[in-house]
């Protein structure tokens, strides 16, 4: 329990390096720390995906230096199938937890949510700092698993029991590495719980004068709804991880069933339920998908109007859609388990709400399209990523129609169709949201503009590239190509290998295009053109302070909000937009 600091303790910003940059209580520093962590994680995840794609295209390829990293995982620099699965598991875990959760939600949310609601900081700055450092510890623990015993875990990011719960007997990677995975995720849950607690309380309690809920920017709504989802989802996953750790280390039998015979050895577990883990995991896991994508909805709904120079078609409807998606996300976890051996009748029950989720998603897409209609769209890099977001989200959403139906899932489950689906709808859409947000808010965060030309090159290569990588995966899935295969030895998969090579080559290009982004990020950080306070002529509160904002965000000013967040294209006295803080009247045309 934190407590209010009486005004007498107001001493201004901390001066020491450690308090200022390392163990900072400032939400802006914490937001940047999260962003930095996400950058490290995404770089690692990207390299892992390259390694995976090399192996999938050319099984016997020797990858220089890989043998140095793991002599058992790649003897003679050739990747073993178990190391492939380990890299896949680590790719997914890093990307989903440490990139798609931290970057759009924890990083941008931390930096911008308090500013956008007009607060000077988060409600509980100490918890906020702990949230980041706990997450950092989780990251370190996860990375450690690369260097222990028999290597990183290989049970996938879903870590299905009993593969994940019986320990080293299950094969390489399932020893200490898997335990570290479970510990890392448990720690991560704690970090995100602290973060969500802050987000929710800040949104509810620390809005400035005039900042009614209806006037909050949609990005703030995105983070707010996400934090509610995250609070419940991570709270559900945390005990599941504890039980998994106990199964692995204390000999309990929560998830490990009786009579398991591994390599002729009867294991001593009694009657645990592997399906119980799946239920607990997906009860978290499905909402996690929305934790990754909902901030993207918010970011796009804020960025798009700013560049389209008009209000979003119906911001109340967008809010309603986000809230209903958040609510529905807790009723659909079973659609990951249609063929898992659970009661087939429940498949029907889980199928319907899954399909129903497409309604708010469709509404949002139509509202974005309707916003583009008649706009005067300024195609900056950020705007390009926003419209790109709409495109990849449509593509990813539509393939969900197939997987939501149990009768088709029986064919498509666990094929590359699923891989294509979740990469489009979760990974790509969320990444496009992150990129749109980065190009949009970088000037605010660092006081310098990012290079637009590089940004546009980054967009074109990425946009075309991701379609080359992930669109063919739909075709692979339709042809029955099973996912999580280290090699395609089956006869019916052999004709698909050329397509895999095409995907691999495209993936190298997409990955390389990201290096442009990294370069742009670091170059602009130090040598970019100086940013004005409001380079995009946007209206939300962060643009009414300096770039970057002072320690207390508004330099001691106490803002009062008079308008909604997207008064673009209006007849104001001087400009065609009205800041939220502008006390002037808007002439209704």
């Amino acid at each position, binding site marked *: 329990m934190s407590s209010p600091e009486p005004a007498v303790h107001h001493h201004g910003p901390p001066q020491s390096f450690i308090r200022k940059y390392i163990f900072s209580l400032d939400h802006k520093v914490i937001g940047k720390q999260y962003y930095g962590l996400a950058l490290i994680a995404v770089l690692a995840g990207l390299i892992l995906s390259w390694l995976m794609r090399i192996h999938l295209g050319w099984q016997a390829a020797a990858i220089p230096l890989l043998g140095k990293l793991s002599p058992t995982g790649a003897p003679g620099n050739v990747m073993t199938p178990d190391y492939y699965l380990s890299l896949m598991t680590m790719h997914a875990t890093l990307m989903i937890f440490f990139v798609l959760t931290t970057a759009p939600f924890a990083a941008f949310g931390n930096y911008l949510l308090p500013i956008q609601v007009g607060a000077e900081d988060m409600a509980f700055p100490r918890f906020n700092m702990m949230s980041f450092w706990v997450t950092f510890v989780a990251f370190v623990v996860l990375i450690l698993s690369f260097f222990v015993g028999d290597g990183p875990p290989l049970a996938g990011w879903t870590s299905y029991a009993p593969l994940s719960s019986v320990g080293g007997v299950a094969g390489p990677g399932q020893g200490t590495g898997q335990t570290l995975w479970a510990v890392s995720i448990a720690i991560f849950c704690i970090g995100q719980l602290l973060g969500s607690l802050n987000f929710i309380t800040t949104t509810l309690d620390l809005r400035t004068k005039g900042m009614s809920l209806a006037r909050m920017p949609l990005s703030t709504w995105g983070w707010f709804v996400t934090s509610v989802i995250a609070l419940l989802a991570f709270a559900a996953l945390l005990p599941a991880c504890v039980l998994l750790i106990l199964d692995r280390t204390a000999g309990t039998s929560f998830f490990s069933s009786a009579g398991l015979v591994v390599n002729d050895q009867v294991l001593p577990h009694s009657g645990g339920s592997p399906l119980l883990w799946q239920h607990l995991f997906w009860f978290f896991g499905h909402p996690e998908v929305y934790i990754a994508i909902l901030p993207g909805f918010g970011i796009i709904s804020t960025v798009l109007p700013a560049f389209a120079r*008009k209000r979003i078609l119906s911001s109340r409807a967008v809010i309603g859609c986000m809230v209903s998606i958040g609510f529905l996300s807790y009723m659909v976890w079973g659609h990951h388990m249609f063929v898992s051996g659970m009661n087939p009748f429940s498949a029907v029950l889980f199928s319907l709400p899954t399909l129903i989720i497409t309604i708010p998603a469709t509404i949002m897409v139509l509202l974005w399209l309707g916003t583009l209609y008649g706009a005067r769209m300024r195609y900056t890099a950020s705007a390009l990523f926003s419209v790109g977001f709409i495109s990849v989200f449509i593509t990813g959403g539509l393939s969900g129609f197939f997987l939501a139906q149990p009768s088709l899932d029986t064919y498509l489950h666990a094929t590359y169709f699923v891989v294509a689906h979740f990469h489009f709808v979760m990974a790509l859409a969320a990444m496009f949201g992150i990129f749109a947000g980065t190009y949009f808010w970088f000037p605010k965060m660092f006081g310098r503009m990012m290079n637009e030309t590089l940004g546009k090159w980054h967009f074109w290569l990425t946009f075309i590239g991701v379609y080359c990588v992930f669109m063919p995966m739909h075709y692979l899935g339709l042809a029955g190509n099973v996912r999580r295969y280290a090699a395609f030895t089956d006869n019916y998969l052999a004709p698909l290998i050329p397509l895999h090579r095409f995907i691999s080559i495209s993936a190298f290009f997409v990955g390389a295009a990201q290096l442009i982004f990294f370069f742009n990020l670091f170059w602009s950080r130090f040598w970019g053109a100086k940013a004005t306070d409001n380079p995009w002529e946007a209206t939300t509160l962060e643009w009414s302070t300096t770039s970057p904002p002072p320690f207390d965000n508004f330099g001691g000013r106490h803002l009062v909000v008079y308008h909604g967040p997207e008064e673009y294209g209006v007849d104001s006295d001087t400009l065609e937009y009205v800041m939220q803080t502008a006390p002037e009247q808007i002439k209704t045309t």
Partner: protein
Amino acid sequence: MGKLFGVVLAIITVVSAGFIVAHVWWMPVDISTIGPRIDRQLDETMLATGVLFLSSQLILAAFAWKFGDDKERKIKYFPGGGGPLIVFAIILVGMEILVLSFVGSKVWASIYMTPPEQGSLQVDVAAEQFAFNFRYPGPDGKFGTVHPERVRDGNGNFFGLDPENDVDARDDVIVGTLTVPLGQPVALTMHSKDMIHSFYVPELRIQQDIVPGLTIPLHFTATKVGKFEIVCTQLCGLGHYSMRSFLEVLPQDQFDQWLKSQSGD
């Protein structure tokens, strides 16, 4: 820049859809009695989502093309505002959902919620890291009792039988290839010894996880003679990619002969 985006997106959309329409990569031929219904369901879904995909992406492309930063043009709002769009989305998607889930549930129920036919060929399946093993009851029609502690892969005792003391077990036929007669219903009783595995035959359009600790039933009827691959689709460890077996569909007389030759000695 908006015009370029419109063109690029339109090209991507048409090319992506083109491969689907041309069936360049497509499902393998169907060999089961339930396959045609699943295929029809997939075609219908493909048609519905295809129309949505093409229309929405092309509308996005067109809007990007048309509504660039043209200072001369006044900003226009979507006629009628968001309301009609919302109603349109609810009706259109709602209808589609109702149709798809109504038809789809019936297909699903016909596979997974019906009991196998009387007189189906009973086959016991034991999955393990990384193989499928199949057991036929042999001439006596009875399966021998299973003793997990007797399982030894090294000498082929995949099921943990005790033929020395258990008469039923002596004639059990244990093979690594699932051989079934053409047109006859087959009822699988599936077990896993260690991890979760999954039984997937793309040609049968059937996929089912095999969860340790549970007995998972699955039934199908094959309609074409041939040899097809059974693959594992649930991550089960390092050799997951190589966990496969074969489904061999034989005409009834050849099947009988095969079964006899297996249990004859």
